[in-house]
């Protein structure tokens, strides 16, 4: 086994005195605690699998520099799914000084399983008993001291969202890291016969293997071998010359199976669950009677089919109206503010200060670019981001996953895939990464393809800001319908042609949580920040460059080759094609540049009304349609490439471009015929 070190972790190791890893089951508030400790902005949500890669950050405590690694949420450290593997790699290859295991006080028994597994691996552990407030509300009382005594590790009660107990947690962790011993003393033992067999194997390991991979304890390796862990079995056999050892471990595993009638891996899992369950029983008391909370009852309505489907439809309608109407209102407000107080004064200011030259005119294009950002992109994004944060934080997406499982099967996926696909409407990049919760490659390819077709917030802004605003809401709705049909038919076709197998849905369901206003606003701001810091400068620079090209006359040379495709096939002005190409950087650019182009192309017309004089309603529709479908943007392409490799990412990208051109041409044809 090559002992690769994780490059990212090594980078912060150089700067840090200690490395702590944060681990825990999905959705126990790990990322919230990570954000609290490090002051970073990692996205959080009330559904499993939000964090799919390692997040890293530095923090300081009492003058010690500490690197924090946020592992993906996982139920176990096996090798059966991508998230489990990622967490496992983070621990084995990242080599943290200790692991902070975050436990959900509401579901202690199941959560302790992972902690026991860390102890089995020989990791020093500090535990945070999180979501204490919720547990207390539902009448679960935990004897934290007893828990800490039984486990033999420090346990700190915390409320992550409020930051309660985190200071103490970090101090406990630091103390442990400073006084670290080699391996923690195990506070539990398995059944006698299992234990004696583990010991038998352990002696062999000690005798035969000199360098245990990742400095695991002999006990840890013995257990992994009995669990028939593929990675370690092949490493020991092929690289460490332990054929004899493997034969022995297979024999011992077979003995266990004969005695218990179950595979050794299952027996060990059963033992761990048994121990975890009895520890939880020992330290927790439950209130006798609990009335189901409002959240729990609402949750039942949303997962029951008779009520769930209508609720889903209503919520979708409300979202569309909120974005269309709310975003529109905000857009008008912003536009008025911009024109009256900033845009026009600066524009005339530039002209009077620099005179009329190519440069000053191009600067004016850039100013118009800022206006486009404020007027179109920002308002729609703002509304959409608030809604997305509410959906994520409440946990409603779990219900959607449950309701849509049957339907998703037709697309070769299962219910869980619906979460990344919906969140793709925010941004495709994290959505593609989110497909890691799917267990087979086939599913990930299909899901990634569908995600890329889902209009992200930038494309929504274009559809709303151009089509809905200028061509009418009916056409905007039609655009959504086209995309919906496209996504579904693409799924059905991919289900037929992509080789491999699809796995089934196994997903923990979380009850609703009341969305925290602070977190919703924070998340909205995090996403907007990304837009403001990355997209806005691009739009401004893009406008400036386009301005330079335009004012200097170069634009004709560039648009020339585009003419046959844009004017002939799609029926839109060739310069608009240039905007489409620029939009590969950020999809909002398409609209922003188009508006700037229009404002400049037709002199004397103000920005607000100009687009319709530059293009017809139909042309705007075609333009937005092509923009929506063709390969999303450079960032999405990069993440596709990273997740799926060169071949599949290229196939997906090429297919979207072809689809976009086909549908765009079709749209032009229909418009001409009408």
């Amino acid at each position, binding site marked *: 086994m090559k002992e690769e070190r994780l490059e990212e972790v090594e980078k912060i190791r150089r700067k840090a005195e200690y490395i702590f890893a944060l681990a825990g089951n999905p959705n126990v508030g790990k990322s919230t605690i990570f954000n609290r400790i490090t002051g970073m902005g990692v996205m959080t949500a009330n559904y499993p699998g939000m964090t799919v890669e390692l997040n890293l950050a530095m923090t300081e405590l009492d003058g010690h520099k500490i690197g924090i690694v946020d592992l993906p949420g996982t*139920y176990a450290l096996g090798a059966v799914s991508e998230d489990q593997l990622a967490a496992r790699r983070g621990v084995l290859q990242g080599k943290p000084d200790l692991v902070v295991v975050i436990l959900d006080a509401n579901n202690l028994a199941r959560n302790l399983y992972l902690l026991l597994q860390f102890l089995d691996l020989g990791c020093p552990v500090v535990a945070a008993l999180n979501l204490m407030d919720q547990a207390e509300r539902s009448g679960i009382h935990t004897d934290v001291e007893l828990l800490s005594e039984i486990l033999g590790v420090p346990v700190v009660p915390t409320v992550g969202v409020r930051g309660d107990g985190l200071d103490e947690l970090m101090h406990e962790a630091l103390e442990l890291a400073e006084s670290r011993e080699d391996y923690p003393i195990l506070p539990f033992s398995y059944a006698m016969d299992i234990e004696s067999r583990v010991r038998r194997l352990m002696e062999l390991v000690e005798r035969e293997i000199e360098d245990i991979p990742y400095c695991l304890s002999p006990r840890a390796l013995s257990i992994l071998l009995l669990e028939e862990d593929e990675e370690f079995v092949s490493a020991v056999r092929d690289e460490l010359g332990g054929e004899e050892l493997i034969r022995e471990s297979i024999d011992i595993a077979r003995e266990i199976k004969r005695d218990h009638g179950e595979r050794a891996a*299952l027996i060990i*899992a059963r033992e761990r669950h048994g121990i975890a369950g*009895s*520890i939880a029983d020992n330290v927790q008391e439950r209130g006798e009677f609990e009335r189901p909370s409002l959240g729990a009852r609402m949750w039942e309505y949303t997962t029951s089919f008779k009520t769930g489907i209508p609720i889903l439809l209503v919520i979708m309608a409300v979202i569309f109206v909120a974005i269309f109407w709310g975003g529109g209102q905000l857009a008008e407000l912003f536009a008025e503010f911009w024109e009256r107080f900033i845009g026009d004064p600066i524009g005339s200011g530039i002209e009077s200060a620099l005179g009329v030259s190519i440069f000053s005119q191009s600067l004016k294009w850039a100013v118009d670019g800022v206006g486009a950002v404020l007027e179109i992109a920002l308002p729609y994004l703002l509304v959409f981001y608030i809604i997305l944060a509410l959906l994520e934080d409440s946990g409603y997406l779990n219900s959607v996953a449950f*309701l849509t499982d049957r339907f998703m099967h037709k697309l070769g996926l299962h219910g869980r895939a619906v979460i990344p696909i919906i969140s793709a409407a925010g941004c495709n990049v994290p959505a593609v990464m989110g497909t890691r919760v799917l267990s087979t490659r086939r599913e990930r390819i299909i899901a990634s393809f569908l995600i890329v077709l889902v209009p992200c917030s930038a494309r929504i802004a274009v559809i709303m800001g151009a089509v809905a605003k200028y061509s009418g809401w009916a056409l905007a709705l039609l655009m959504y319908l086209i995309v919906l049909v496209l996504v579904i038919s693409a799924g059905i076709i991919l289900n037929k042609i992509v080789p491999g197998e*699809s796995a089934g849905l196994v997903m923990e369901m979380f009850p609703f949580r009341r969305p925290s206003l602070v977190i919703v606003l924070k998340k909205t701001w995090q996403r907007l920040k990304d837009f403001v810091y990355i997209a806005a400068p691009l739009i401004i620079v893009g406008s400036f460059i386009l301005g330079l090209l335009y004012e200097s006359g170069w634009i004709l040379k560039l648009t020339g080759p585009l003419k046959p495709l844009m004017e002939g096939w799609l029926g839109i002005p060739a310069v608009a094609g240039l905007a489409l190409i620029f939009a590969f950087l950020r999809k909002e650019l398409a609209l922003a540049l188009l508006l700037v182009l229009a404002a400049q192309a037709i002199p004397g017309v103000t920005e607000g009304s100009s687009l319709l004089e530059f293009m017809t309603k139909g042309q705007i529709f075609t333009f937005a349609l092509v923009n929506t479908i063709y390969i999303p943007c450079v960032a999405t392409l990069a993440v596709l490439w990273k997740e799926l490799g060169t071949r599949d990412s290229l196939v997906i990208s090429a297919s979207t471009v072809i689809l976009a051109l086909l549908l765009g041409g079709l749209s032009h044809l229909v418009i001409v015929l009408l």
Partner: protein
Amino acid sequence: MLTEKMEEYLEALFKLSCEEEPIIPTRVAEYLGVTSPSVLDMIHRLEGEGLVRYSGSARGQGKGRIHGRHRKGISLTPKGNRAAKTLVRRHRLSERFLTDVLGLDWESAHREACKLEHVISPEVEERLAEMLGNPETCPHGHPIPDEDGHIKEDAEEVKPLCDLCANEKGCIARVDEEEPKLLQYLASLGMLPDVDIEVKEVAPFGGPLLVKVGDTQYALGREVASKIWTRKGHRKAGRGRHKHQGQGIKKDRDERGTA
């Protein structure tokens, strides 16, 4: 005349068929600790004797299709079943004899019985049963078939989880082992044999199930639920030493505390 080897296969097939029919060859290989080709070889010989039926590959070809209960594999013919039961009867009777009369421990009794079962004649079998007072179970608690091959067993109905209705409770009997990864994943969530499971909601038109295990609710796709077999009622006593272990931990701690 059957060889000892063939008899061993028959016995293994009989035990496996109590769990699930038809049986896939890899299960047999795993159970006996032999390679799959040698299993297939033997299956064909048994087929020639009219003791088993074997139909093709047990794996479906469809992508992610649910095979339900129409899978192919090995099954015992009535003749084979009868022969297997006789062997099981002889094995278990021998075990009883070895423990009750000769005072061997269970483990050695099992080993010895494995050898004895092949050499006991019908006459010895009858006398043995008579002497032992026609026992109903072996020392491990497994039922002993009577001379006509009938097994007294509280016939437990085992059905897939997806056949349960909403609000029905059951206990996981086993999980199909064809997909070790799924099995392992479910195990890490605590969905193991002998664990209680409650169906909260069944989505119509072949949709998923909402189930409760312990304190947690899970959504399970229909195809996953069809691989989890349940039986009625609660967990059997004696397996998964939950309570016992807990006390052990606490006592250890107390002792350490006072020391």
